[in-house]
Each structure stands twice: as structure tokens, then as C-alpha cells.
């Protein structure tokens, strides 16, 4: 991999040209327009931010080990949870699957040579990096303590931390997300290979299509909201300031109009990944393909209509609360449909227990718990009691860490042979999946109980209610286990890049165009332009006895 000097070229004369060895050197990466290389740039950068956010999380958990505030100052704690949220949401979860696996796989899965706008794709990474650098600068020079939700008038008039800088960082990163979504929508519409009809698309693509719609229509709203808050802070416009006749609730409406659908930006791609994994390791076509595909779109659409369920105690009218509660149940249905279809896909399958499948099982369990606790939160009467408590914290971590991150890790394992051309160590990977699952539940399940007991979130010091300590200790203990579980994959992925066994083109014998090219793929993805003549998830043909098996692409 690192033998880049022209003098050693003769030694590699039998090596096939891939996107990895086509060119070496820093500039061949920093100026690349190859979606696969950009995916790797994203992979490195989001991993960096993931570990920063994870470090903050560990400090938060350590602080909460004892009721008194004894590890850090109150202000520091507030900055820790704010930046944990901002980094994890805007710089890890939102770009996680779309910008890495999506970037790598969307063109390959539809049979294209690249995304529709490769230079815009690179621009999106640079925007992400500029936003990330600003965020880092902000954190290193004082940080911000508004909570990731930066509610006015606290963020606009009261905090004396660097909200504007953090806001600009999120604004810029938001445009990176918009550009990724734009590229996906155009690519999926216009760049499909001959024969790749909509009904033959992998469900991963459907999920990314739905995600892109949300990125495109939601992100601009939070962008303008940030602009308005920053302007409010700098110029005292009065739009959100009750002392000047403005309405702080308008901010919350605008904020959640993006930030609720943003949850689906995080979870939908993960659902797409899990769908691919389950089909492959059950050796089956996905049960109810159409229902799974359209449920993604339904989630994207309904996701835009439920934002005010974050505001049931914020002072909105009881009647609008009624409507939003109802719609929240409407958006729960498509998720339930997906879970049932995944389960049904297992029926009469031929199930393999490789690491990606273990992650998918983990996803199923954790996402189900996360989704079902969403039913509690959508129930108005219970919401009043548990909103803004650890119940909410546990719920969204089950969705966004249990769900989205499990899917992300599962996907990384599933496609790692394709991305790197190397096999990861299977035993370690299964162990990591187990550790993550146990650590996750140990960390976050106690928080449901804490929440119903009434422990509010974002509390630095709970010496007023020491009875909450036992559950907090459990949670902190779990978080260290979880930390180990997340470090392991990074270690063995890096290890496998050098020492892993070379992967074949299709180590899982999986369906999907990306498996019908070399591992790692050539720069233009396919040596011969693919022509699709088969349905998605044609595992029946793939597992058929050799004489009838389709050997090559087009």
C-alpha cells in the first residue's frame, strides 16, 4: 500500500490497478474526485470526530459517577454535553453512513462510474472539514454551552460562550450534507446503469434516496435558523427575543422542523445497511421489497410532520399537541413495518452468523427498544412526565447509537473487504459486536429507569437526589465497556489493512452490483459497463448449483 515510489513499480507488475493504488501522495487524495477516495477521506475524518465526541461522553459519564459535581466545573460539564451533542450529531452521525458507505456504494450499486457531480462531492468534504475545523477551534478556545439544541433566548442573549462560531461551523457542515444529498438524488435519478430499474434498486439505495430528500429539504431550514439566531445575538433583531416582541417558540418550531427529520437522516441509511446484510446472510430476497422501499419514503415524508412532539410541554396549544401526537404514531408505523419485514425475511432463510449479521441482529434488538420507547414519548400524558429526562436520553441513544451506529459498524464490516480488499479478523469482529451490544445496554437501559424516576437531563450535579446514584454507576460502567467495543473495530480494521488476508471480489457471495467488480474496485468501478438483467437480491440464482450460476457481469 505504501510502496509508492516509481522505482518499485516493476515489483508490482502483477498487481491490478485499483482506486487505491492508482496514484499515491497526499495531493492524489486531497484533490481526488473519485467517490471512493472521498468516502475514505470522510471515513477518516468522521472517525476522528467520533472519538472526540466519545471522549466527551466518557467524561460526562465519569462526572455522573458520583452525585456531587467533583470532576469538572459546572460550565465545563455544560460544554462537554453540548459539544458531545454537536460533534456526534453534525460531525459524526449525519455524515456517517451517507458520506462514507453511501458515497462509496451508491454509484457502484446503481452501476455508475461516479456520483453525478464528483467535484461537488469533493467540495462537500472540504465544507465538512472547514466546519469541523471551526468546531475544533471553537472547542479549543473556550467552547460553547448552549446544548446542541441551542434554545433561544439562552443562546441568543444569555450565554457568554462562543455560540456564533459553533453556529457557523454547523451551518457550513450543513451545506456539506445538502451537497451529498443533492449528489445522491441526481445520481439515483440519472446515472443508473441500463436495466437498473427503480424496482431493481437495492433497498440501501431507497434508504439513501429518502435520506437525501430530508437532507435537501430540512437542512436549509436549520441553516436559516442559525443565521437568524446569530443575527439576533449580534444585532438584537427581536425575531426570537420575547423582550422585543419576538417568540422563542418560533425558534423551537424552526429548529425541530429540521432536527426531528435529522433523526431519520441518521437512522434511514442504517436501515438500508441492515436490509442488505439481512438479505445476504439469510440468503434471501427481502420479504416485501416494495413495502420496505416505500416505508423509507413514508418515513421521510411523515418525518417532516411531527416536529412539535419535542414541544409538548414547551407552551404550544393542546390542540396542536394532539395533532402532532397523532402524526407521531403515523411515523412509527413504517418503522414497525420494516422491523416485521426484516423478521419475516429470516423465515425459511439459511442464516449465517458472520460479524455483519451479528451487528444486524444487534440493530434489530436495540432499534426495536428505541422505537417502542418512542411510543411512550409520543403518548401525550407520559411525555409530560418523561420529556427532558434521562428517558429521552436513553430513547434517542437507542435509536441513534444503538440503531444508527450498529448499522454503520455492521456495514463497515460487510463492505470492508470491498473497500480495502482485505478481510478483517472474523473472531475479533464477533467479539466486538458482542461487547458493543452488552456495553450499550448496560449504559443506556438504566437511563430509562432514571428518566421515569424523574432525573432531568443535562444535570451536572445530582447531590439533591443521591438516590439516583446506583443507576448512574451502572451506566458509567457500561460506557467503558462500550468504549472498548468501539475501539476494537478501529484497531483490527487498521491491522487488517496491512496484515489481513486478501479478499476475493465477492467474499460473501452477495447480490448487488458492487460485488460484481474487483475488491478493491478500479477507479471507474467497473471494467465493463454493467447491464442489469436480474432482480434485486437474486440469492436464489447466486446459491444455485454451479451449472446455472451467472458468472460475470454483462
Amino acid at each position, binding site marked *: 500500500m505504501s510502496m509508492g515510489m516509481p522505482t518499485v513499480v516493476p515489483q508490482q507488475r502483477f498487481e491490478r490497478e485499483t482506486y487505491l493504488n492508482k496514484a499515491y501522495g497526499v495531493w492524489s487524495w486531497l484533490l481526488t474526485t473519485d467517490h471512493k477516495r472521498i468516502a475514505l477521506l470522510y471515513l477518516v475524518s468522521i472517525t476522528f470526530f467520533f472519538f472526540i465526541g466519545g471522549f466527551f461522553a466518557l467524561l460526562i459519564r465519569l462526572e455522573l459517577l458520583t452525585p456531587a459535581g467533583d470532576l469538572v466545573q459546572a460550565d465545563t460539564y455544560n460544554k462537554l454535553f453540548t459539544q458531545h451533542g454537536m460533534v456526534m450529531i453534525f460531525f459524526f452521525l449525519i455524515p456517517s453512513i451517507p458520506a462514507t458507505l453511501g458515497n462509496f456504494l451508491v454509484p457502484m450499486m446503481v452501476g455508475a462510474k461516479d456520483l453525478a457531480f464528483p467535484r461537488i462531492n469533493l467540495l462537500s468534504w472540504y465544507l465538512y472539514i472547514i466546519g469541523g475545523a471551526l468546531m475544533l477551534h471553537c472547542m479549543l478556545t473556550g467552547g460553547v454551552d448552549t446544548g446542541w439544541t441551542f434554545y433561544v433566548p439562552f443562546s441568543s442573549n444569555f450565554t457568554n460562550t462562543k455560540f456564533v462560531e459553533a453556529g457557523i461551523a454547523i451551518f457550513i457542515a450543513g451545506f456539506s450534507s445538502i451537497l451529498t444529498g443533492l449528489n445522491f438524488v441526481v445520481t439515483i435519478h440519472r446515472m443508473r446503469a441500463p436495466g437498473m430499474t427503480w424496482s431493481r434498486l437495492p433497498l440501501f439505495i431507497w434508504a439513501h434516496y429518502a435520506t437525501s430528500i430530508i437532507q435537501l429539504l430540512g437542512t436549509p431550514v436549520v441553516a436559516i435558523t442559525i443565521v437568524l439566531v446569530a443575527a439576533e445575538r449580534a444585532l438584537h433583531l427581536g425575531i426570537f427575543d420575547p423582550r422585543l416582541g419576538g417568540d422563542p417558540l418560533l425558534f423551537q418550531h424552526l429548529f425541530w422542523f429540521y432536527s426531528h427529520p435529522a433523526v431519520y437522516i441518521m437512522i434511514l441509511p442504517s436501515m438500508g445497511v441492515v436490509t442488505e446484510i439481512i438479505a445476504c446472510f439469510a*440468503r434471501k430476497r427481502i*420479504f416485501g421489497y416494495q413495502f420496505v422501499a416505500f416505508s423509507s419514503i413514508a418515513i421521510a415524508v411523515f418525518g417532516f410532520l411531527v416536529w412539535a412532539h419535542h414541544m409538548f*410541554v414547551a407552551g404550544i396549544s393542546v390542540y396542536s399537541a394532539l395533532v402532532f401526537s397523532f402524526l407521531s404514531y403515523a411515523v412509527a408505523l413504517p418503522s414497525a413495518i420494516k422491523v416485521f419485514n426484516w423478521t*419475516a425475511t429470516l423465515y425459511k432463510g439459511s442464516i449465517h452468523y458472520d460479524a455483519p449479521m451479528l451487528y444486524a441482529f444487534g440493530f434489530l434488538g436495540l432499534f426495536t427498544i428505541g422505537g417502542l420507547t418512542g411510543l411512550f414519548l409520543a*403518548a401525550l*400524558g*407520559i411525555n409530560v412526565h418523561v420529556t427532558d429526562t434521562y428517558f429521552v436520553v436513553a430513547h434517542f441513544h437507542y435509536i441513534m447509537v444503538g440503531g444508527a451506529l450498529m448499522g454503520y459498524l455492521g456495514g463497515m464490516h460487510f463492505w470492508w473487504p470491498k473497500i480495502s480488499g482485505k478481510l478483517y479478523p472474523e473472531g475479533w469482529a464477533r467479539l466486538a459486536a458482542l461487547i458493543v451490544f452488552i456495553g450499550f445496554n448496560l449504559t443506556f437501559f438504566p437511563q430509562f429507569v432514571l428518566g421515569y424516576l424523574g432525573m432531568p437531563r*443535562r444535570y451536572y450535579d445530582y447531590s439533591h437526589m443521591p438516590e439516583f446514584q446506583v443507576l448512574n454507576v451502572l451506566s458509567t460502567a457500561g460506557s467503558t465497556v462500550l468504549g472498548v467495543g468501539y475501539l476494537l473495530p478501529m484497531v483490527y480494521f487498521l491491522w487488517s489493512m496491512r496484515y489481513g488476508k486478501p479478499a476475493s471480489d465477492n467474499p460473501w457471495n452477495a447480490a448487488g452490483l458492487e460485488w460484481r467488480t474487483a475488491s478493491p474496485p478500479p477507479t471507474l468501478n467497473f471494467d465493463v459497463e454493467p447491464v442489469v438483467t436480474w432482480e434485486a437480491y437474486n440469492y436464489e440464482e447466486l446459491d444455485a448449483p454451479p451449472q446455472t450460476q451467472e458468472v460475470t457481469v454483462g
Partner: protein
Amino acid sequence: MLNDFPLWPQQASTLAHRVDALYIFLLIVTGMMALLVCTLVIVFAARFRNRPGVRAEQIEGSNALEITWSVIPFFVFMVIFAWGAVVYFSQRTPPADATEVYVVAKQWMWKVEHAEGQREINELHVPVGRDVKLIMTSQDVIHSFYIPAFRVKQDVLPGRYTVEWFRATKPGTYHLFCAEYCGTQHSGMVGDIVVLEPAQYEAWINGGSNGPLSATGEKIFAELGCSTCHRTDMQGRGPNLQGVYGKPVELADGRTVTADENYLRECILDPGAKRVKGFQPIMPTFQGLVSEEQVNALVAYIKSISETKPAGGMKTANAGAANQPQSNGSQVQ
């Protein structure tokens, strides 16, 4: 029975039992759903594990199944939705004759003022078995008044009143939390709700030195010169405020609004916005001239001269929540 279970919050209000009943129902329903999914996944995963020579059986899907597992959850969801909405409506609709307490939140404390004039900080004394309505506002950022043992929570906003109510059922001391992140000492913005037996409460409430809140308001009303225009005969340059509270008011621009707390408050701070029909826009704004506490006192005074309800009314707390005529406290604007 749940009160002694350490993983269950104390139940100390009439609402607590209702919220818990729904919660237990949901625990059972979602527990069954989770169990169903998990059992199926585990059974399928074990039963259909990869065996040499056995190939997966391809199944395209089944519309009948899809409809079944869409429609059944939908009806279950609707039951939860309706039940949740009913509980919410009673959480949100204070009984008309509730004892009123004014709460002013600021970074980082709760200031409480009883109608009888007692003031407290980070503490709230309430009697057992009587409906208490909190009329809350904030001096700075958004806070949230949360009493887990009562299962009530309401954000407290600057620039307007929001309302929360409960009826304590058990004497004791309970946690009061600020549940909306409000800055450095957010976690220090905690206090105690002290629920007293009626007799103890009477002793406590009469132990203070201040006069009733409405009397304070009356004094401020006179000091600010309000009474020169708002006279009780029909000669005043401002509307007669006697009996105005809770009644519909016709505005100069043709609209009709109900004179609730938020309206009275707005009229003091922004008199031009909703001027009463037939009066000139001559009242100056008192924005910045009166503190939140003084506004509360003025509102309490204006309400006191509109008093129609029997004093110390003890009504059943959860009498038909939805058809209470009371204007809704959590309404925007």
C-alpha cells in the same frame, strides 16, 4: 404499592396514578411487541441457521401479512394515542377554582408567591387534597417546572404566563427540578415541594408577615396611578377593571379575546397591542418599569376585584377535564 418500589417514582398527586396506569399499559403492550419480535428473530435464527445442502426458500412477500401488521399496530397506537391525549388534557386544564400560586423563574432559582402573600425561594408549600394552579413566568431564559412525584412539567417562558396544576395526595417533601437547560447552574435550580396537611398548611400560610398578593397589587395599582384612569365608575379614561377577568373583551380592531392572565399581563406591558374598544390609546407601557413580581401582584389584584367564585372552593380535581370553561394556560399567545 408502587410507592415502596425503589425503581418507581413516588406517586403523590391525582395525576400520578393516571400517568402510571398508562405507563404500565404501555410497558405491557410494548413488552409484548418486543417479546414477539425478539422471539421470532431468535427462533428463526436458530431454526433456519445455515445447514449444508439446505437452501433458503425465496418468498416474495405477502400483502395480507403486510396489511395485518400495519393495521393491528395502528389500532394499538390509536388506543395509546387516545389514552395519552385524555391524560394530557387533564394535565393541561386547571380546575377553575384552584388555589393560585405565582412562580417567577430566573437563573438559577424559583421564586414563589402565594395569593396570601407568603413568599418562598426554591420551595413550595401546598396543602394536601386541594387543587393548586401555578401561574409561571421567567425573567430570563426558558426554564421548566418539573415535579416528578406529581408527574407534571411545564416550560416557563419569558414574556408570557404558562400554567401548571396538580392536586397533591400525600403529605411529604418531593423534588422540584428545572427540566429545561438554562445555563451554568441548571442542575442547582432544584428545590422542594412540601405537601402539608390542611391544618399545618393553614398555620404555615398565615405565619407570614406580608399581606395578600392582591393587596400588594392594589397598593402598586395606586402607586403607579393606574386608578386615575381605571376608575370603577364609567367616567374613567380607561376601562373599568371590575369583573373583567375571565370575560370576553371586545378589542378596538374588532377581535374578541378572553381576559385571562396572559391578556392582563400583555395589557400592562404592551397596552397598544390589544386595546379595548371605545378607549383611546393613551396608556403608557410599563415594560421595564415593573418587575415580574409586580406584574403578578397587579394581575392578582385585577383578578381579585373580579372574584365570583366561592372562596376556598374544593372541587373534585379531575372533573371532566376537557369541558372546563377555563381558558387554556398553555395556549400560544
